[in-house]
């Protein structure tokens, strides 16, 4: 038999001015199950809480209804108070008579009547509540970091530095990501590789970090604290343990003219290769789609030359399963493709800029390689078509970015800065060269950022035109192929035509191609462009709505290196907070199945946004099949209740919002 205490709060004048609390208390007294009904000026205050505790203890109450403010304000407070007095915290309900009654209804009669009904709803629900126990989940204190760019490296090193094991998965043969290919970085112009390569070496050597390059996450199962991850380690055809990285193999490979994707196809590599000299691990892979041996079984020069005997043409992909407690996603970005072909069908390319048609129209990452000392031209800006050093370069900003007609409406944030950097680096190398920039707005918020852009204009003489470019064509002018760039300067209001030797397009940052597929495996949301969604844009910027999965770097949205690194450390900190405990406590308001009723129709399995429900077999003691049933994984269930709504037999129910409880609430409103 329920013994319910109802405590109505005045909230000073906030409730009492518009609601006759005395009348409310009186009216409630006679409700079934109500044992006592009292009111007080401030229920949330120390004396208010003491009043509740005392009443529980002296009257032996089994449940409490507090009629006061929104449960979002004080439900936790009153649950804690009840627990102190020995009542299960889930036997506490609140009636919201402030935000949803006294503050919005001026008529005292109406408000009082409504308050009584609101409390009646809560009392009826409480009469059907049952005590719940918080769920305790053990934590595997090992983290998976997906993506070995600067963000992933930072996150991995931070977590490892705290003494926890980390698996760092990178799909390319080397860690380093996009940053490893950059020339110099804004606003300090320090060499990108000089900063990054020591960190790359560190992840490789750290005893707590298991580095898995040339690998991709295949499958993720489990839940916060207890993920089971399957990683595909792609066949490398080189035994990394035997290999010494001496370079005999790639120096001897006869197949030398394969476009190197690390150089965005501006330079070449061999069939057995390391993507760049500072690659970590400094172990090659064989590109089986291009290797002569895989075509006709011949050649095999690398195998013959390898003193360590590390070449293994029979190597196969391996699937490796790892148990981890937390996942950090750091899959980074790629550039929006300005050619006709788009990986995202909602985007369209820039036919008017002739990318792919004109060799000397390149994108910003290609330009980074052209001016990088480790790039295909050794840092000399030679144009791809004929190797001439360009005397005039046009840089175009906002290509893709802020261009709704092409399908991208966002600002990519970093292009203003790197374009200014590009003009500087170019002018430092070609002193008499001309650098023209077409821009719409200059967005250079950040420490020493605007000063940097001004320096490009004032000291290095970059000529900025405020306007977009409409069309680029290629013409031979006085025997030299020129790109005729037709732009405008909206500040003069006139069209501007520049005959350039090269055009660099500052393309929008887009999420990497596989990011959304990975997000689906992890039950992480993403936006229409494929950027992964954080849990809250202000207060939970590195968490996701999938518990135990964190984000950092450009997979979440365009950002520069400092921001990516800061976010990576933040994600690491969140992982470490998790790992500081041995067990996780989770709210028990989750779904459960009455397995005797369940017909295993799978409606709930399909409806569940968290893949928390699976179909399991029930067997008798002898191991004979009895029936199938759905079963909820308490670690994965987030308690949305969608399964309850779709269950035809009502054999699944949501604790805290059970069918019985909700129907009781509605029935209390019977007139």
């Amino acid at each position, binding site marked *: 038999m329920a013994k319910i205490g109802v405590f109505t709060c005045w909230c000073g004048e906030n409730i009492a001015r518009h609601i006759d609390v005395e009348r409310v208390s009186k009216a409630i007294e006679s409700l079934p199950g109500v044992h006592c009904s009292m009111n007080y000026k401030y229920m949330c205050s120390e004396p208010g809480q003491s009043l509740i505790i005392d009443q529980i203890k002296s009257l032996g109450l089994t449940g409490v209804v507090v009629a006061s403010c929104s449960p979002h304000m004080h439900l936790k407070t009153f649950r804690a108070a009840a627990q102190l007095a020995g009542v299960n915290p889930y036997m506490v309900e609140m009636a919201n008579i402030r935000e949803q009654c006294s503050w919005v209804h001026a008529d005292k009669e109406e408000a009082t009547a409504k308050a009584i009904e609101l409390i009646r709803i809560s009392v009826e629900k409480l009469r059907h509540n049952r005590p719940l126990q918080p769920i305790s989940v053990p934590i595997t204190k090992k983290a998976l970091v997906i993506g070995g760019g600067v963000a992933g490296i930072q996150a991995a090193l931070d977590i490892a530095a705290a003494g926890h094991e980390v698996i760092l998965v990178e799909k390319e043969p080397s860690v380093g990501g996009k940053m490893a290919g950059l020339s110099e970085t804004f606003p300090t112009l320090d060499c990108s590789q000089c900063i990054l390569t020591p960190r790359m070496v560190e992840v490789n050597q750290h005893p707590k970090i298991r580095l898995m390059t040339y690998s991709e996450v295949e499958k993720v199962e489990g839940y916060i604290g207890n993920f089971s991850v399957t990683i595909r380690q792609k066949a490398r055809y080189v035994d990394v343990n035997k290999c010494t990285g001496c370079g005999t193999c790639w120096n001897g490979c006869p197949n030398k003219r394969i476009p190197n994707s690390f150089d965005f196809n501006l330079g070449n590599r061999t069939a057995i290769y390391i993507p760049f000299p500072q690659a970590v691990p400094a172990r090659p892979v064989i590109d089986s789609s291009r290797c002569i041996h895989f075509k006709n079984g011949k050649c095999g020069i690398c195998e013959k030359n390898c003193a360590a005997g590390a070449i293994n043409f029979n190597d196969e992909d391996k699937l490796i399963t790892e148990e981890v407690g937390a996942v950090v996603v750091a899959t980074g970005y790629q550039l929006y493709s300005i050619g006709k072909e788009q990986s995202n069908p909602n985007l369209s390319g820039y036919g*008017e800029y002739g990318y792919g048609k004109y060799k000397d129209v390149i994108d910003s990452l290609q330009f980074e390689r052209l001016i990088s000392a480790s790039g295909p031209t050794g840092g000399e800006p030679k144009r791809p078509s004929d190797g001439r050093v360009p005397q005039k370069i046009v840089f175009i900003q906002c290509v893709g970015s802020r261009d709704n*007609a092409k399908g991208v409406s966002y600002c990519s944030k970093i292009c203003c800065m790197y374009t200014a950097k590009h003009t500087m680096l170019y002018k430092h190398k070609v002193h008499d060269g001309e650098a023209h920039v077409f821009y719409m707005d200059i967005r250079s918020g950040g420490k020493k950022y605007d000063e940097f852009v001004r320096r490009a204009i004032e000291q290095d003489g970059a000529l900025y035109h405020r306007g*977009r470019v*409409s*069309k680029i064509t290629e013409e031979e002018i006085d025997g030299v192929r020129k790109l005729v760039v037709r*732009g*405008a300067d909206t500040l003069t209001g006139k069209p501007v035509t520049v005959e350039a030797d090269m055009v660099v397009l500052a393309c929008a940052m887009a999420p990497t191609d596989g990011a959304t597929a990975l997000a689906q495996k992890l039950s992480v949301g993403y936006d229409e462009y494929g950027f992964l969604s954080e849990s809250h844009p202000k207060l939970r910027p590195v968490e996701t709505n999938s518990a135990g999965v964190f984000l950092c770097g450009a997979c979440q949205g365009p950002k520069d290196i400092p921001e990516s690194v800061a976010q990576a450390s933040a994600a690491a900190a969140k992982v470490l907070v998790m790992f500081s405990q041995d067990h996780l406590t989770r709210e028990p308001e989750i779904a459960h199945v009455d397995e005797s009723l369940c017909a295993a129709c799978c409606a709930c399995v399909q409806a569940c946004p968290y893949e928390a429900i699976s179909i399991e077999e029930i067997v008798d003691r002898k191991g004979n099949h009895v029936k199938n049933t759905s079963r909820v994984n308490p670690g994965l269930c987030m308690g949305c209740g969608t399964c309850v709504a779709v269950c035809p037999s009502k054999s699944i129910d949501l604790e805290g919002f059970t069918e019985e409880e909700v129907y009781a609430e509605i029935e209390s409103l019977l007139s």
Partner: protein
Amino acid sequence: MSETQSQLVADVEKLAHTQVNDCYQCGKCTAGCPRGDVMDIGPTRLIRLVQTGEVLEAARAESVWQCVSCLTCSTRCPKSVNISGVIDALRQISVEKRISAKRFNKTVLFQKEFLRNIRRNGRTNELELVVAWKLLGLASDLNPLAALRDAQLGPKMFFRHKLHFMPGSPVKDKAVVRRIFDRCMAERKSETEE
């Protein structure tokens, strides 16, 4: 912005089926415009004038009539603003309010004559048009030689059977064409049919 100005902006947007505030003044329309280099007020600034309520100033611009209606601007606009539609709307307003740029009186008169010609015949009668054009030229141009410039093309075209005295096959139901014109013109207080 005054109420009159807001109404004019709304009128332009309605005629052009576009939202001028979508424009963020990137200049791509001016950049690609084949006449951008000779216009007094380029397309980007025309849109800006409309955004700020200065529709009449925009409608007075010479550029409104320098536009060759090639649609390059609207096609490449990153915000899908129908710029050529706005220019058409400005043309219509400039004609209705009799404020079109003086230098382009002839062009305006020609467009009107073209429509009158269709209204009369259902199809264009090119000879009538060319003659009207020449007459307009003599009447409005201070330099009669300039007006005669194209006269030499007349005999050439005629010789090549290109210029017809009558339309190939005249429209039978000319009355319906007139009624269509009257219905379309009726709701706007237009001075096109003076």
